[in-house]
């Protein structure tokens, strides 16, 4: 009888899962529009590349435009599109340096940090003066929880053509290395010198300033920086997520919801929306949580690790399944070891009542002198839980 039940379940899911819209004018999907200057720029580079497929410079320009657009809109599809453009050169025994660099950036963006690092180290063997490769390497080292190695990479920029880049690089390291005050100061100096027409840089530096302010416990200051960043780059995926987290931490759930609710297509924004809805006890919380779970399930089906951090947090805070959250946080820790990842592993280990599992995060926090008050608080609670244990 059981097999018959299973059979009918299978037959039921085989029913066609599609519909035919009744209204011809129903909008099915938003797509990039040529009204957007970034899209026009991309399209002209794409046309050029199609006319001259052998032209390396044209291909690189297009690949970089795809990466910039993908980063700006949060659309990860552009990573693959960029890689397809440089693919013929990747097949060479020694790809051109710029091709390797673009490829390393793609690998890093897809969270394939080990491969990105190997690619960058090989590239720097061939071209030790490549500033952008050093910068990218520093960022991979930061994500992998090695700020000291990142500091050495940043140091390679000192005395180079631009002191400003070295300063920004070192500030990013100091942020997670017990010197958030220094980081804040040097970043503030960079922002002061920024030309008005660089919204991307502005969004990034304001975001970093906000993070630095949070590390120092100045939440009101952090909020001002988030707002300034969003003014420069409205809808910036990264700023929205971080600002919403600040509001959620402060218990301002309604404001957090208002901030992200128009960006529910973005998984990172949607996660904050679901968190806010749940805390406010809104009726749609359950349906949206199911939708979020479906997105993670689709992600897992393709074998992707892009959202492990978000998924672990979702399972911990929304589904309240500490054991599974801890397993995800541990899996995430294998590739990402930034402060947020440490915070997540600590919180999951505490909730699952397995403080010992968070040992690698504890070691990292101690070694790097991470100041973030939220991480410090978790660490205190973890110690108490450990001391209290028989």
């Amino acid at each position, binding site marked *: 009888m059981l097999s018959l039940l299973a059979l009918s379940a299978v037959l039921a899911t085989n029913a066609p899962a599609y519909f035919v819209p009744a209204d011809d004018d129903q909008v099915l999907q938003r797509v990039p529009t040529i009204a957007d200057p970034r899209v026009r720029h991309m399209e002209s580079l794409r046309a050029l590349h199609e006319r001259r497929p052998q032209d390396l410079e044209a291909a690189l320009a297009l690949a970089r435009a795809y990466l910039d657009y993908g980063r700006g809109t949060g659309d990860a599809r552009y990573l693959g599109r960029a890689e397809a453009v440089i693919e013929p050169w990747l097949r060479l025994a020694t790809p051109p340096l710029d091709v390797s660099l673009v490829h390393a950036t793609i690998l890093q963006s897809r969270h394939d940090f080990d491969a990105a690092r190997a690619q960058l180290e090989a590239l720097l063997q061939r071209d030790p003066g490549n500033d952008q490769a050093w910068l990218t390497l520093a960022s991979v080292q930061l994500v992998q929880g090695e700020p000291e190695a990142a500091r050495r990479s940043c140091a390679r920029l000192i005395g180079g053509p631009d002191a400003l880049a070295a300063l*920004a690089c070192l500030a990013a390291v100091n942020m997670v290395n017990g010197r958030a005050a220094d980081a804040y100061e040097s970043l503030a100096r960079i922002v002061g010198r920024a030309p008005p027409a660089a919204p991307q840089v502005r969004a990034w530096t304001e975001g970093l300033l906000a993070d630095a302010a949070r590390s120092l416990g100045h939440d009101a200051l952090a909020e001002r920086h988030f707002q300034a960043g969003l003014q420069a780059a409205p809808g910036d995926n990264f700023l929205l997520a971080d600002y919403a987290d600040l509001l959620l931490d402060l218990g301002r759930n309604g404001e957090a919801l208002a901030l992200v609710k128009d960006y529910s297509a973005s998984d990172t924004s949607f996660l904050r929306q679901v968190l806010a809805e749940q805390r406010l006890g809104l009726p749609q919380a359950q349906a949206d949580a199911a939708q979020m779970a479906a997105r993670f399930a689709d992600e897992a089906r393709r074998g992707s690790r892009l959202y492990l951090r978000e998924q672990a947090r979702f399972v911990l805070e929304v589904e309240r399944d500490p054991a599974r959250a801890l397993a995800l946080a541990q899996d995430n820790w294998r590739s990402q070891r930034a402060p947020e990842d440490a915070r997540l592993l600590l919180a999951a280990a505490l909730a699952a009542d397995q403080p010992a599992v968070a040992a690698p995060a504890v070691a990292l926090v101690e070694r790097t002198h991470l100041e973030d008050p939220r991480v410090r608080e978790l660490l205190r609670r973890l110690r108490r839980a450990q001391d209290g244990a028989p």
Partner: protein
Amino acid sequence: MRAIARWRLVLLCAAALAPAAWAHKESDSYLRLRPDPADGRRLLGQWDIAIRDLAFVLPLDANGDGAVTWRELKAQRQAIERYALAHLSIRGDGLVCPIRASDQGVAEHSDGAYDVIVFEARCDKDTPQKLTLAYDLFADVDPYHRAIVRYSAGQRTINDVLGPQHASVTLDLRHPQRLRQFWDFVVDGLWHIWTGPDHLLFVTSLLLPAVLVCRRRPRAWGDAGDWQPVTGFWPAAWELIKVISGFTVSHSVTLTASVLGYVDLPSRLVESGIAASVMVAALNNLHPLVTRRAWLVAFGFGFIHGLGFASALAGLSLPPAAMALALGGFNLGVELGQESVVLPLLAIAYLLRGTAFYRRGVLRGGSALIAGLAALWLVQRALDWNVPALRFLTPG
């Protein structure tokens, strides 16, 4: 000029150091396949491709307003099908199964709207044993595109993820699964008998007199008549074989006819008929009308029991070969279930046949009990009247 050069580097700095916060997953398409239950040569498929991905290679957004409408999608239906179907091939046992799109629709997935290509693939060979999918959609524009493939046939589902590194897959649809499926149905048949006492009591009623010979029929109710034990084992065994065979032949006919949809009687009628058959068979032992040809009773009522068995397979829909296998397996299970009860029973009856206990207690007493129980079922089923206290006597 120098200031601009400086800023270019800081810009790179931002690009390199800012953590990437991706809004949604990379590109997937969803490809689902199943055999057509009505035609073993045909595969039915549904292929969902993200509108976002199609818009990257085809001019979907005709008016360039950044929104793809159903009208715009419909207008590009042919172009979409031509583009997509050129990047998918299906082979059955090595031979190409040409794909024909039959409908267009829309599906909502977790990351947006997808164009749906409904298609069928027609293979030369009936029910291929090996199905090979080769997939290279978007391989030239996005190496991280993946196809989430799901093949389902009956109880079996095969999942796979195709992409440039793993661009084709061969699904083995052969015997391991067939055998497995056959065995599953055998088990279903067994359970159906073991958990359905009405069928067993019917056969039992017919067999109780098999170890006896009726010398004189009872003249009135309460008169036991004259039953004598059979002299040898073989007459009893022969009687058993005839009864079981008669029952098997007829219930197989109606089971098959019913599952294939040729016969459709209301279940209340069928269930009441089964209860009535049990009652008649038991009463016949108390006041025999038929003594020599019990197998005819088995054969006759077998038709209605077959319809009852079919309820366990209601809604089953499989390709012909698998259907034959399923029916065969289920029938075999029903037979095994019967034999497992009837053979030990016959052995005991044969040993006890000479005792008065058997003739009075078992044959008369047992039959009276069965007749009473069956009468209760008949009332319950015919009138749809459930006596809660007697639920444990009611076959599920």
